[in-house]
């Protein structure tokens, strides 16, 4: 009897797709600690993205431009609608808002150095403007956030553009978070907070609610700065058609739409992974809103959230954006999550590429920390050069694609240059599924 049982084939252990190893680990972690998971970065789940689109290139009906001989422009001007002094950028790739506090002072300096060498702008964050970034950023966008940490009229006047932040892709509807480990004396002083507390900033602005109020708020900001500065309105990827429409009606010069892959310094994982739409799903509705209002290209559209390569840049522009913005990719260019620190990532219970506990302030790369010893590992001059190189490569890649599509400016790329590899991407991007003339959601011609 025993022999019979021993030799009988057994059912192979099957792991549940619903209760996977990582899901169960998170249940155990929550049960042990009593707190939701807080982390940095953007959505890690797989969502339809630019990888699901392809360019068609030149053919009988489109002739290409010579790669090394014929010009393909990359310059873009932001803020032409109302501002006296629009921002002129050499490349259509900007650096997204990241706070001093979340990042170290030298990291902010490196972003300024790299962006300036590449001819583009960088952006402050939820902690006010530092001398490092103002001094090293030829063009600096000053964020106007619900917390108003460090907000003052002098910095408003010495910035090059103002970005009113309504939301961000990682957490549409959520406010900033900076835990006590990173509230050093300098960070606390800039934010008027006690050092060492867990800072959770407000999720909406303290002195306006809704688009009608925002119109008056924008009027006030224009009056304070004598109508010189372009005013951007940044929204998370929630309702891109209506959000863009309302931002334009409120008077924005530039609308920034940040999809769910856009990063944050710290927030709840449940927020990052379950609130907001993928970047790819946001672009066409935002463009349609601008077209319906007759202001496409007059009000510029900046897209962010998961931009990594020149191909991503080119695809975003082809779908109608005027520029893109990068945050996570810029940090990786500086040295974040670099395998050279693998042993230290392992000691923190993670691995290079997956490290996202930026809020704890123990970043081995010395970028997302206020610890002087760790900060000293990061060289802002070298970091600036690396970012410059990366931005230049992205621009060259975008130009390569644009030339192949026969365009003498990257902004001349158009949806007709694209096809999609999946039905989902075809529907979101509003381009035909490869090998067909089918755009899901639209009637065939």
């Amino acid at each position, binding site marked *: 009897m025993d022999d019979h049982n021993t030799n009988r084939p057994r059912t192979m252990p099957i792991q549940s797709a619903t209760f996977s190893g990582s899901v169960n680990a998170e249940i155990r972690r929550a049960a042990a600690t009593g707190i939701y998971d807080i982390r940095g970065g953007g959505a890690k789940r797989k969502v339809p993205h630019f990888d699901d689109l392809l360019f068609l290139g030149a053919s009988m009906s489109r002739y290409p431009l010579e790669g090394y001989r014929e010009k393909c422009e990359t310059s873009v001007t932001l803020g032409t609608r109302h501002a006296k002094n629009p921002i002129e950028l050499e490349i259509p790739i900007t650096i997204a808002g990241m706070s001093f506090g979340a990042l170290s002072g030298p990291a902010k300096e490196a972003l300024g150095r790299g962006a300036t060498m590449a001819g583009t702008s960088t952006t402050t964050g939820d902690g006010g403007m530092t001398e490092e970034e103002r001094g090293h950023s030829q063009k600096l966008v000053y964020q106007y956030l619900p917390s108003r940490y460090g907000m003052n009229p002098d910095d408003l006047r010495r910035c090059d553009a103002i970005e009113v932040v309504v939301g961000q892709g990682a957490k549409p509807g959520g406010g900033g978070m900076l835990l006590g480990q990173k509230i050093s004396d300098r960070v606390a002083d800039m934010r*008027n907070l006690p050092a060492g507390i867990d800072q959770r900033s407000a999720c909406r602005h303290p002195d306006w609610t809704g688009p009608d109020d925002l119109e008056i708020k924008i009027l006030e900001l224009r*009056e*304070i700065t004598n109508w010189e500065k372009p005013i951007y309105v940044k929204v998370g990827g929630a309702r891109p058609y209506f959000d863009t429409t309302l931002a334009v009606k409120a008077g924005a010069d530039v609308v920034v739409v940040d999809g769910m892959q856009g990063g944050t310094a710290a927030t709840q994982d449940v927020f990052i992974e379950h609130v907001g739409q993928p970047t790819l799903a946001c672009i066409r509705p935002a463009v349609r809103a601008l077209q319906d209002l007759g202001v496409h290209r007059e009000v510029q559209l900046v897209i962010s959230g998961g931009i990594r390569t020149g191909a991503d840049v080119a695809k975003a522009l082809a779908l109608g954006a005027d520029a893109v913005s990068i945050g996570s990719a810029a940090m990786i260019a500086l040295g974040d999550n670099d395998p050279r620190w693998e042993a230290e990532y392992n000691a923190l219970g993670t691995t290079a590429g997956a490290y996202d506990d930026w809020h704890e302030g123990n970043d081995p790369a010395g970028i997302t920390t206020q610890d002087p010893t760790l900060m000293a590992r990061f060289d802002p001059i070298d970091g600036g050069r690396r970012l410059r190189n990366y931005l230049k490569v992205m621009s060259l890649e975008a130009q390569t694609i644009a030339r192949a599509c026969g365009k003498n400016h990257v902004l001349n790329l158009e949806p007709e240059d694209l096809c999609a590899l999946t039905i989902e991407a075809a529907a979101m991007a509003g381009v035909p599924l490869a090998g067909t003339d089918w755009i899901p959601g639209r009637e065939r011609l």
Partner: protein
Amino acid sequence: MQTFDLEEQGLRALNQTLHDQANDTNQTSWEIINPRGSHAIAVGLDAPIEVKIKGSTGYYCGGMNKQADILVEGSAGPGVAENMMSGTVVIEGDASQYAGATGRGGLLVIKGNASSRCGISMKGINIVVHGNIGHMSAFMAQSGNLVVLGNAGDALGDSLYEAQLFVRGTVKSLGADCVKKEMRAEHITLLQDLLNKAGANANPEEFTRYGSARKLYHFDIDNAGTY
């Protein structure tokens, strides 16, 4: 005295003219007539000038003020003196929502009542309200002092940081982490000084001080129900 007719000359000309006043200007006294509830009157000033507004104002009057002394001979709309850095803003009538929001310095005096969210997210400003204040006032207030000669509405000082609140009348309810605190001699001195500056005739001994219990400064699952 320089007189500026807002209805005739327009908002842009007004603010540009006031911005053009240098620190050593001898045109130190300005009177604005026909404000008619316009928004963004006298915003972003940065000179030691006196600005008298002959009537009521709309949103954000005196926003981000530095140095200037602004008097509104009427009532003020939402966000009066928002993010003020220094100087004074005095409202002879009532103030709407968010009065003194995120203010970092200076003195805001409201001789009537203030609506909800007075002093929201204040960061160093002093606010004296001769009348009552509405609900959610001093929400997430970080530093500075809010003095109320009348009564306060619901959820006073919710999620308060280090700002100090002084109320002479009743408080309908306190917000999360806001508690009654002892009035010590230094608080009496501070309050008397603020009352004097605000032209308020009141006895500091009659006020109650409120501040942060500091229990929400660090996340604790046992306090989750408080948020």
